């Protein structure tokens, strides 16, 4: 296990370096003057030269990259022009806000996905199964931003149960009940798509394992149903579900970007969107890197958990 962890950890290093290279190259391939996007208005050529040398933009690309990486490794993401503040201090609270939203969304997605998927598997072929499967197909395919708007329309505008935007009420002290009240709709919107896919995988995994020979054997030995379920069925069902959940967390991050924009949730996706509109290079880079790193890390964690659950993974 130790060697597997080490090998997997080493394997993500080149990927992370590649991610920084790609983001850096993409941003610096931007057409148009960097200086213009930094100061926001036309300045004299002498001024352009001064600004370029101040930000190191007159240096060759690899020198600029090395400089950026040096700063990155010391935890410095640069200065955001549009926010007049350090990128790190803009994004730190955003990461926390997204973690709250994505974490809640993931818990909801796993719960709904497992319950839906297992319910469908236990009633395979019945109207219950068909109903759940169809619902999941539609919910899983629908664009998250549209689902978010439908939730707002029904639960906020028509039934007036939950607020439609923001993280806290504009008036009064921020407190937990207020946060939870604001969290419900975005979390549901974030959870919908992953829930559908987890349900699909849970259903087929459950169907497969329940029909497997080792389950028949365990039953034949006379083990009580609960023992068979907890000791034999569940353990084997979990492995594919963990894999897909890890992957889903990645897609969930994609959905979060839209949901945050719709609900005005001040998370990393919202900041990324704002930075792209403002053409704020450093902020866009910082937000993209954080999201991509988180995505890589989550998939890494899912692999590790899988290796723990199913030692056969180590060999692959």
């Amino acid at each position, binding site marked *: 296990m130790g060697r597997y962890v080490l090998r997997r950890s080493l394997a993500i290093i080149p990927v992370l370096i590649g991610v920084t290279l*790609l983001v850096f190259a*993409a*941003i610096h391939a931007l057409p148009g003057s960097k200086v213009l996007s930094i100061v926001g208005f036309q300045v004299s050529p002498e001024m352009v030269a001064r600004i370029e040398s101040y930000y190191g933009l007159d240096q060759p690309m690899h020198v600029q990259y090395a400089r950026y990486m040096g700063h990155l490794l010391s935890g410095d993401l640069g200065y955001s022009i549009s926010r007049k503040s350090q990128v790190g201090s803009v994004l730190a609270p955003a990461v926390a806000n997204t973690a709250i939203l994505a974490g809640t969304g993931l818990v909801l997605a796993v719960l709904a996905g497992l319950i839906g998927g297992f319910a469908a598997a236990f009633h395979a072929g019945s109207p219950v199964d068909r109903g759940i499967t169809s619902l999941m197909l*539609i919910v899983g395919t629908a*664009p998250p931003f*549209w689902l978010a*708007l439908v939730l707002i*329309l029904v639960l906020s505008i028509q039934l007036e149960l939950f607020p439609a935007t923001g993280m806290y009420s504009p008036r009064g002290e921020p407190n937990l009940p207020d946060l939870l009240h604001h969290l419900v709709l975005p979390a549901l919107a974030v959870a919908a798509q992953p829930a559908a896919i987890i349900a699909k995988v849970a259903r087929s995994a459950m169907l497969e394992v329940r029909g497997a020979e080792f389950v028949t054997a365990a039953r034949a030995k006379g083990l009580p149903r609960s023992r068979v379920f907890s000791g034999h069925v569940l353990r084997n069902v979990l492995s594919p579900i963990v894999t897909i959940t890890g992957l889903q967390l990645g*897609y969930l991050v994609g959905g979060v970007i839209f949901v945050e924009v719709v609900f005005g949730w001040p998370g990393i996706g919202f900041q990324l969107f704002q930075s792209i509109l403002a053409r704020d290079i450093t902020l866009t880079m910082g937000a993209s890197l954080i999201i*991509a790193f988180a995505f890589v890390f989550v998939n890494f964690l899912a692999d590790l958990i899988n290796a723990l659950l199913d030692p056969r993974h180590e060999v692959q």
Partner: protein
Amino acid sequence: MVACPPAGPAPRHAARWRGGRLAIWLRRDKLAAACLAFVLLVILVSILAPWISPYHPAENDFDMRYAGVGTPGHWLGTDGLGRDVLSRLMWGGRTSLLIGFLPVLIATLASVALGMIAGYFGGLIDDVIMRCLDVLFAFPMVLLALLLVGVLGAGVGSVVIALAVVIVPYISRVVRTAVLSELAMDYVLAARAAGASNFELLSRELLPNVVPPLLAYATVLVGIVIVVGAGLSYLGLGVQPPAADWGLMVAEGQQVLREAPHVTIVPGLMIVVLAVVFNLLGDGIRDLLDPRLRT
């Protein structure tokens, strides 16, 4: 099988596309037939939109603003500017389909080349290609698309390029795996023994066997790409107003969500239905090509 002369391609899957096979499939798989009919209908309506749409998509009638679904003359209602939602839906199909099909087509061409080269030549070439794709895999689909459109600037062209790049790693990986499994087949060995060059092997032996199974995957991807592309338009980074596009219509509807919810609901439903239909059609094609995988 080893003794077979390698004359001509080895059309294991290709033969299935000839003759009445398609008709038989459509008659047996009612769901796939319905999905195919729906897709064709949407394509037809989109192409004919300039001639059959009741109004021009940008024509606004301020007296008829916020008309609900079922209003005579505006059967799907009007939006906040008094524009006919049905007409905009028809015109919007043009960009939505373009954004769905074109990136998948471009990405498939690029991925077939990449995946076949990686799988066939192996070694260093394979390593380099696959490590590059690993980097693309490290980005959630939406993030990469957003980043690329941010760099390229808003517009339909940027969206098409961005979405094509985003799905290349997914298709390439499928192609590479297919090539690796085909390489172990006897017909490849036979062609090699008969002295086929690398190019002949790739183009005449492997290509006909690798591409048809991709069709199912590409079909599912069209649905996904339509959803992501609509998202980019929704964010204001794709199709620009006053053009009609389903994602853009959802965004415009959001402004009048309280007064006229149908402006948001209708185009959104259209995206969902089309994406689901492509998903089901992809399943149908997969079953057609490989009935063993039937679920």
